């Protein structure tokens, strides 16, 4: 534990030292992404809304009738899943797309990943605002438990960074990671109970869903926003464990291969 803590403090120290670099990288990623257009920014909010609209129209007939506040239910799923998808996809590219930099200049490589994540977080934040507008429209009454949404946001963000680290390293070593991950994401969409409820499955199968970290984060939001309950302490621990496990694995991979990435690009 002691070693790990010192590693964390070291990362924080380097972050502070490289604050200027980090800001410039974030700026660059932001400009790259939106190409300096207003529509670019609006589009990143519009596209999840369109997905939501289609799902709402198509699935309400099948699942909507016995799910209270189905729109909110759907939106919560989409909100978290698109955050996960965007953040990890961006993270996966972060090493390869900056290869021409880190093969010439000695910079901490996780900076690229973190800066990519910042734009994903900003996108997520915008969508989150729209989410609460929809929550109001959907007549979900205000509950104090809604403030707990900060917890899954934090655990999801840490989890995304960890997964992004793992994927970016894999992508350097294996160029087909991109396609395999695409397939994986599609499968995960169906396994994350975004548009259906898992109540109809037997209890045993319902527990299997808890193995999916993305689903757990989605579930947390649904519980605090729609049901107005706070999940059990064990559930909090589970989310935290997923996040820290991903981050630890990612961190170890970066530590181990830090000097080897450039042989592969």
């Amino acid at each position, binding site marked *: 534990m002691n070693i790990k803590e010192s590693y964390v403090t070291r990362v924080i120290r380097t972050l502070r030292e490289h604050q200027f670099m980090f800001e*410039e990288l974030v700026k660059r990623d932001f400009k790259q992404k939106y190409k300096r257009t207003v529509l670019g920014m609006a589009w990143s909010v519009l596209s999840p809304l369109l997905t939501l609209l289609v799902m709402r129209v198509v699935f309400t007939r099948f699942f909507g009738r016995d799910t209270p506040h189905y729109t909110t239910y759907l939106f919560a799923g989409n909100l978290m899943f698109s955050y996960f998808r965007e953040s990890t996809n961006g993270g996966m590219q972060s090493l390869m797309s900056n290869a021409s930099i880190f093969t010439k*200049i000695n910079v901490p490589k996780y900076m690229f990943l973190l800066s990519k994540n910042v734009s994903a977080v900003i996108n997520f934040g915008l969508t989150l605002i729209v989410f609460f507008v929809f929550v109001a429209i959907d007549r979900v009454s205000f509950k104090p438990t809604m403030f707990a949404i900060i917890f899954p946001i934090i655990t999801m963000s840490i989890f995304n960074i960890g997964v992004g680290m793992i994927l970016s390293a894999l992508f350097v070593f294996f160029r087909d*990671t991109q396609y395999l991950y695409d397939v994986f994401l599609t499968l995960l969409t169906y396994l994350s109970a975004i548009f259906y409820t898992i109540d109809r499955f037997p209890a045993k199968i319902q527990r299997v869903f808890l193995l999916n970290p993305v689903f757990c984060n989605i579930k947390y939001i649904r519980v605090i926003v729609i049901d107005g309950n706070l999940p059990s302490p064990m559930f909090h621990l589970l989310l935290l464990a997923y996040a820290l496990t991903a981050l630890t694995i990612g961190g170890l991979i970066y530590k181990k291969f830090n*000097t080897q990435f*450039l042989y592969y690009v």
Partner: protein
Amino acid sequence: MTYAIKAENVSIRYMTGDFKDIGLKEYVLRRLTHNYNVHEFWADKGVSFELKPGDMLGIIGANGAGKSTLLKAVSGIMIPTEGWVDVKGRIAALLELASGFDNDLTVRENAYLRGALLGYTREFMNEKYDDIIEFAELQDFQERRFKQLSSGMKSRLAFSIACLVEPDILILDEVLSVGDGAFRKKSEDKMRSILESGVTAILVSHTIGQVRDMSNKVLWLDKGKQICFSDEVELVCDAYEEFLATKKVPHSWEDIESLAEDFTVRQEKKRAEKAKTEQQKLVEKLRKTDTNVAKAAIEAYLKEVEEEAAEEEKTE
């Protein structure tokens, strides 16, 4: 006296073969069928040298000798597979400058980004930005997208940013030849002024004259192996030029000395031959022509001889 850079027995290994560019699926398949082959390749093998503050090291060697890889190890981008490099002070490494910029950003944004990546602070960049642009002669292009710039302009900007700091250690990989004639002159002057300020520097150059001119120590690499590390720059450069002509790889210091000797002999011979042909030309002209033309030819010949003598004096 303490050292500025010390490299001890540095070896760097690259892996080649199947491992690159095959996908995960292919990798698993080949592993299963025992068809997975990788070969190792030592870009540098057992390289050692030590520089004192203010030293200027020239690294010479044919293509693929491991020069650039060694520079990457010194600048900390690569970690040696074996051995170690210790560097005392702040490094400015000018390696393949023009890459790593973002095409969609403007000149100003790229300048700040590069400065940030090189570890400058924002205050420093704010202060020096105008100087950078002025030195790169890009005043009229500041808000231009990078992709609209010519490659010469890009290198000029890269050079200007990288040279701005007053580093303790400067690493130059073939960068003295950026931009057009005028800018090249300017950049060489700038380099010289940095070098004269007493930094420790490492220079990789295929222009052997540059190495003779600027270095006080020389490291000769051949296919990753260290031929020699010496402060007898002229001698080693002579031997190296002889090696380029004959492809004879020296294995000891005696070999190097004899190579250098051969080179001097060769130079002498060349000079003698040249003088001979000049003489012949003159004689022929004299035979053919009347006195006026002959006089002009004699004057031209005398002038040439004088110039040659003056040049020799300079190099000595």
